[in-house]
């Protein structure tokens, strides 16, 4: 009953003052639109979507830092060697699974014999990769432990690559040339967005089928691979970190005989911290990033809120005698406050839905502009779809920001209106 009245009241107000209503709705929608774009820009990095549906359970060691007694203060920074990744992280028992894979996908020529080649992004992985990341297989299956250990030239390819090479996606068992070596397709997966930065590729092959193990620097300690652990639960993170540190200490003892020492920088990082780790030689500060995002949200809320406040204020001024009459007939201050906030919330929510819709459309059509990735090795654009953009939390955030914006923009005027002297209010006296 009350809700219905809010709607009627809100609608009547919107119609009374078309220009002011337009300004109010535009201001609110604009604010929610930009806030939600900021939210989505962060969500594509940390919210789950296939093949990185377990992002909340990931712990990453993307890079490592190493020093030598002879170097003094200097450090060497970059991805790990297969040997290091295996010895330190590969044998861990606390996580559900650990995968080792090449740090970036590399562009490589792919073709059928005698036909022109195309460049595709190739990632070299182990067989655990397929446990940690949940790819959608539309044909065949991933390579298993035995195939991996034997270093067989097999490949998982995406739907698009399969179509390009063979004109169909049912191609398990067929052969093609990858970097001039024959590989057999063992599985076909749905295309992966470059936004799934850790798992992304167009073709995946066992790193034992190439020279990756010997592709090293700093005496076999550094190389070109990274490592991701899948925890059974987030609550296992401390135990996993503890095991990782213990194993790193042991490894440091071993390599310490030649003066080497790995510098930890508190790795492994969870997903939120890992996306900030664009370089190997520094530890990202998640708190600073969160604070910066908070400031952005604050500005995106406060500036329109001040605007809307002055608009609400003016609107309430016109209803002053109505408020007076209500109060005279026994409406309490709290009821009045609730009513004004409620009426405005209807308008805020309407405008908020508009803003949210705009942000979805904008994110979808403007993906290359909005989600352009930093320091990425691929030139392919970041594609987005509903599974990437729309999460339950997206709506939760939108709703939360609408509430805050409503409170900020209506709170003070509503509070002042509810404190008004009844006699003066009925008399129609301004403020």
């Amino acid at each position: 009953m009350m809700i219905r009245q809010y709607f009627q009241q809100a609608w009547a107000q919107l119609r009374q003052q078309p220009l002011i209503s337009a300004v109010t709705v535009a201001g609110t929608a604009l604010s929610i639109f930009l806030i939600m774009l900021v939210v989505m820009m962060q969500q594509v990095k940390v919210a789950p979507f296939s093949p990185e549906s377990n992002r909340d359970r990931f712990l990453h060691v993307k890079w490592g830092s190493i020093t030598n007694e002879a170097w003094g203060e200097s450090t060497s920074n970059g991805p790990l060697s297969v040997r290091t990744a295996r010895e330190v992280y590969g044998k861990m028992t606390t996580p559900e699974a650990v995968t080792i894979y090449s740090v970036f996908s590399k562009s490589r020529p792919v073709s059928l014999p005698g036909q022109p080649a195309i460049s595709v992004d190739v990632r070299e992985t182990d067989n655990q990769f397929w446990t940690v990341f949940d790819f959608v297989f539309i044909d065949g299956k991933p390579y298993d432990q035995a195939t991996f250990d034997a270093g067989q030239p097999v490949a998982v390819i995406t739907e698009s690559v399969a179509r390009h090479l063979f004109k169909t996606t049912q191609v398990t068992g067929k052969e093609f040339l990858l970097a001039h070596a024959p590989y057999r397709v063992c599985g076909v997966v749905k295309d992966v967005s470059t936004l799934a930065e850790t798992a992304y590729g167009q073709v995946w092959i066992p790193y034992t089928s190439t020279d990756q193990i010997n592709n090293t620097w700093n005496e076999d300690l550094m190389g070109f691979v990274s490592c991701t652990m899948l925890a059974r639960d987030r609550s296992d993170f401390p135990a996993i970190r503890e095991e990782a540190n213990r194993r790193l200490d042991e490894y440091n003892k071993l390599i310490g005989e030649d003066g080497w020492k790995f510098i930890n920088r508190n790795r492994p990082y969870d997903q939120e911290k890992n996306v900030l780790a664009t370089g190997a030689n520094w530890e990202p500060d998640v708190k600073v990033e969160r604070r910066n995002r908070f400031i952005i949200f604050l500005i995106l809320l406060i500036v329109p809120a001040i605007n809307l406040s002055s608009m609400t204020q003016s609107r309430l001024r016109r209803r002053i005698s109505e408020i007076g009459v209500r109060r005279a007939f026994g409406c309490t201050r709290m009821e009045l406050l609730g009513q004004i906030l409620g009426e405005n919330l209807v308008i805020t929510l309407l405008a908020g839905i508009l803003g949210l819709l705009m942000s979805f459309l904008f994110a979808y059509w403007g993906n290359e502009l909005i989600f352009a990735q930093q320091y990425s090795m691929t030139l392919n654009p970041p594609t987005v779809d509903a599974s990437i953009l729309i999460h339950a939390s997206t709506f939760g955030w939108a709703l939360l920001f609408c509430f805050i914006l409503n409170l900020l923009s209506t709170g003070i005027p509503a509070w002042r209106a509810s404190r008004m002297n009844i006699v003066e209010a009925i008399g129609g006296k301004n403020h």
Partner: protein
Amino acid sequence: MEKKLFTQIRNEWHSNLWLALELLVVSVVMWYIIDLLYSRIATYMEPRGFNTEHCYLIEMGVLTDKSPDFTPYSDTHKQSDEVRELVERLRHRPEVEAVSLSQNSYPYNGSNSGLDVMYDTLHAPGWTIRRLATPDFCRVFQYKGTRGETSEQLAELLERGDFLASDNLYHHYQISMTSLVGKKAFRFNWSSPDDSTEYRLGAALQNVRYSDYEQGRFCYSMLYNLNLIGEGWINADNELCVRVRAEHDKNFIENLKADSEKQFRVGNLYISDIRSFVDIRRNYQQSYANELRNYIVGMGFLLLNIFLGLLGTFWFRTQQRHSEIALHKALGATNGDVFRRLMAEGLFLLILVTVPAIIIDIVLAQNELNAWHNGTTLEWNRLLLCASATFVLIALMIGIGIGIPARRAMKVQPAEALHDE
């Protein structure tokens, strides 16, 4: 007249307070953004010390034993020979102007190595980039010497075994490298800190910037001939960079890819990827581009809010003052007077908040909370320029925001409005 304006602003104090508050917040945030944009653009416009137009990066691949064409390397079959052969073949393509091999050297490169360049007791700064490249690297990226040396001359100096260094290497001692050109007693710390091999400085380079968003004065680098430090350094992991003649820079990537199978497979070596420096540059600087995009959108958002806020507030105001404006006109005020009066009210508010806004700007700059440029956050001329730009932009929005209701107010017909009086 002015006195009336004051009275009017005071009378509308309550809604003016909101406006003033909004203008204050916006003018501080706007200044921050404009200051940042100014710093970025000023840095961007500086000379780069290199040129990547018409340049391409070729990635080499090596066959694995999975390939039927693979032949293992040996003393007589060396990877370095294959790499050199590939370079020669590329050099013979008619559209190619210069080809170089290098290690952690090309512009917009996230990987780098460091080196200390010592002269007597002088040391280079900690972040001095070591570029190891074949002499033609200077021609590919068109490096220039401080004394007018051309890329060709620089390449000859490298060929002779001299090294090159950016002019600012001893900047912290107030010594320019140009003044040390020709000196022979330079030492590097690359093999061991006590290495006593001495090198001659062939020329000082016009500062080579690390990227378009880093200032030349803070980018230190040295360049030495990759051919002179041992055969093992020439391998398939080297960066193979190509400059294409400007007049022939059409479909270079497609043409080279098409020919690569027949002409550019040398033993185990093949061309695995070709990228234009346009892409490499954009990719490397994406984080800066994203930042600029965010700030520009933020600026647009704030300006739009000012516009909406003033539009809404003054729409109300002209409605409320309907009869007052009519009276004003009845007593002989022209349309222009009415328009100017409303405009003056908005602009006066802006002038009023600009004073505290600039004070806040100065405090922020003193506390190093804004953008860095020329090694500082507080430069008075920059602050003044950016604060003025902020003022002008906001004034413009006020003009448009008030303009619309003011035009409506001008149309008030005194006879109708004062009908009841």
